[in-house]
């Protein structure tokens, strides 16, 4: 017996699947399962996070409901996955954030954006707030660069710390060897597997969403979202280097690297989440952890909001709307940062760690 009802169910399913093995070629979950005959909590959390929710094993399974064996691996692992986020959250006192995650994310986002607007309004003269600012340093007339850098660095470093502590707990649990280090080859393999979403493919035809016809739509929109996010992050990083190394202050002209990266990323962060949200609405409820709808939508909405406010800021930065838009954008980004360890963002971190572990296991087994 395991700590939770869902882990008991996951254990039951893995026992069924391990005596069948028909789905062995679909993804990484089943080969990893076959390396075990019994499953600890850590094993099950590992398998849950290794699952990319492509849905193929559900559509292919002769024992899925209404069969009495009631085998629904994608749904069971989705619930186990979400519960693992709370189980490994750091500090544990904040693990409750996963319980009503949609609400938590909404409140934090709303408070954050409100705080920036109020802060801007309180600290700036009305003429400055609604003024037209252009040229280098325009943004910093509303919020000094050092204040911005300090605030966001602090939020970002906290997020990193919380994520590192969480994934460390996860990594220790999915050993052995306890606390074993990941080797370079396995990490490189995991980067490739994550980068191409190798296991979101239903064994080659695409993943299943609303019916029994496989498509690559979710993979496509996930790529837009993920690479959009990476490009936006790269834009910010380049701009930071510009600022400190080249003493060149934002805003930059449209053709300059931070803006080009940010624009491309922003397009991804707007279209990707819309596609993912649409796919989610259409998804067969049989495959979903419906109780976590808020967490999924909350994260999608945060990314969308970040992309949207960023793009609006770019388009309207030479108008009087710049001040309020900057406040909204900074509010969105700040909220995104501080909720990273306590929302759907962590799925990527845990899944990546699981992929590293899987690459390791494959090497050891080979």
């Amino acid at each position, binding site marked *: 017996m395991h700590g939770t009802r869902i882990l008991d169910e996951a254990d039951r399913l893995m026992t069924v699947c391990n005596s069948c093995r*028909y*789905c062995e070629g679909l993804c990484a979950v089943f080969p990893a399962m076959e390396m075990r*005959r019994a499953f600890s909590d850590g094993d099950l959390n590992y398998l849950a996070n290794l699952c990319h929710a492509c849905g193929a094993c559900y559509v292919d399974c002769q024992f899925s409901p209404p069969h009495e064996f009631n085998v629904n691996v994608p749904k069971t692992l989705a619930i186990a996955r979400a519960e693992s986020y709370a189980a490994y959250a750091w500090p544990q006192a904040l693990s409750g954030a996963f319980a009503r995650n949609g609400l938590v994310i909404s409140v934090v986002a709303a408070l954050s954006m409100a705080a920036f607007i109020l802060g801007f309004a309180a600290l700036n003269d009305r003429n400055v707030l609604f003024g037209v600012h252009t040229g280098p340093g325009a943004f910093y007339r509303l919020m000094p660069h050092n204040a911005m850098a300090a605030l966001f660095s602090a939020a970002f470093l906290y997020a990193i710390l919380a994520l590192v502590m969480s994934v460390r707990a996860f990594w220790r649990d999915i050993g052995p060897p306890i606390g074993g280090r990941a080797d370079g080859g396995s990490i490189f393999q995991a980067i490739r597997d994550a980068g191409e979403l190798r296991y979101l493919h239903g064994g080659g035809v695409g993943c299943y969403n609303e019916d*029994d016809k496989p498509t690559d739509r979710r993979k496509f929109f996930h790529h837009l979202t993920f690479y959009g996010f990476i490009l936006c992050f790269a834009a910010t990083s380049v701009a930071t280097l510009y600022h400190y190394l080249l003493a060149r202050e934002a805003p930059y002209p449209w053709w300059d690297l931070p803006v080009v990266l940010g624009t491309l990323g922003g397009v991804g962060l707007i279209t990707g989440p819309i596609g993912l949200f649409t796919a989610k609405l259409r998804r067969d409820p049989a495959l979903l952890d419906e109780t976590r709808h808020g967490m999924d939508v909350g994260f999608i909405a945060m990314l969308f909001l970040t992309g949207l406010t960023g793009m609006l800021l770019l388009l309207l930065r030479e108008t009087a709307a710049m001040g309020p838009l900057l406040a909204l954008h900074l509010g969105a980004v700040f909220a995104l940062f501080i909720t990273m360890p306590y929302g759907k963002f962590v799925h990527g971190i845990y899944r990546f760690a699981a992929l590293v572990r899987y690459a390791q296991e494959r090497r050891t087994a080979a």
Partner: protein
Amino acid sequence: MSSKYDVLVIGGGNAALCAAIAARRGGASVLVLEGAPKFYRGGNTRHTRNMRCAHDAATEILTGPYTEEEFWEDLLRVTGGQTDEVLARHMIRESKDILNWIVEQGVRWQPSLGGTLSLGRTNSFFLGGGRAMLNALYLTAERLGVEVEYDAEVTDLVIEDGMFLAARLKRPVKGETEIRATSLVAAAGGFEANIEWLKQYWGEAADNFLIRGTPYNRGSILKMLLDKGVQEVGDPTQCHAVAIDARAPKFDGGIITRHDSVVFGIVVNKHAQRFYDEGEDIWPKRYAIWGRLVAAQPDQIAYIIFDSTVVTSFMPTLFPPIAGQTIAELAGKLELDPAALEKTITEFNAAVRPGTFDYTILDDCVTEGITPPKTHWARRIETPPYLAYPVRPGITFTYLGTRVTKEARMLMAGGKPSANMFAAGEIMAGNVLGKGYAAGMGMTIGSVFGRIAGREAAKHARN
């Protein structure tokens, strides 16, 4: 639904879908009547995992060649010669092309599964298993314009002088109707889920049989055809039967209720007596005799008994073994006579000769002086906890069927070929399989004769 089709396919499994696709590709209008609801569509194909096809060279997923001749020799060996050579050789020849054709219909392969290395050269495994294979065939059929109706129970066939005219159909919502077609392909499986019918040959013992596959294979189409003058083929008591866990559901438990542990221990009946050489041959070759062996024991129950030293030697099982710290405790849990089980195991242990255990070969671990002997892999059962799986006969499919020609055309009782009736799959497997079985052959029979039946049915309809 239009009132008349070129080709009517009754059944919804591998053979039926191959027939429907081949007929549609041959230019015919096709209706498939599947008696099961959509989820349970496909009969026993849902539970399959691979297909045995001849091939002259290794492929991406097959480790080496498997020639027509070798396939034929395997078939000859497992059936003890009880096969129709012309038909069987034709099937084997056609199976080579099926390996590619089935992929063109959307089916995907994967390398042989963990725990099935012995089949890696001969059998191609379906990625995702039999239901995935079916899903692919249904998608292709629907894309081509094949009409499919589920929950479609055929209540009667109108056949005159060996000529199919129409099928009467009872549908849950739309009521009774009659469907006419120029050709018929019967691919509706055997009768293994019809316990009353099984009882005609097995008596009350059939009540203790578990049916590994679909509860919808009640043999109603087979019975109609035989009653209306189609020639019968095969021994009605012959079937594919293995020993499966006695705790499995009555129907549809599928492959996961099987046991691979026989060779690692002993098998006793309800009187705690051994009754067959557990070490006769490498397990995959003897796997399919144990259903009949257990069926012949009192109350059709037996117990595989082994000890804790071998638990990791075979595939993990769905149901955990029943355990006891002593033989007597185990006997109590199995409701066997403790004294009798202790005596059987003591005698067995005393008969075990020293040898070098190796389950991958026919090793030299044998018993001496007991009947029946255990001729390989005999080791003492002496390390607690003592473990057991209760097993019953699990019927996979039956061999009684309709006789067909190389064109999959049914033969009438007088020997005259039917003008427009074809059969494929389990309903005619007895033409090839008089008895015995080799893994993956059911699917070969289904795909090969399904494709032939569909092609011929379309040809007839368009002439």
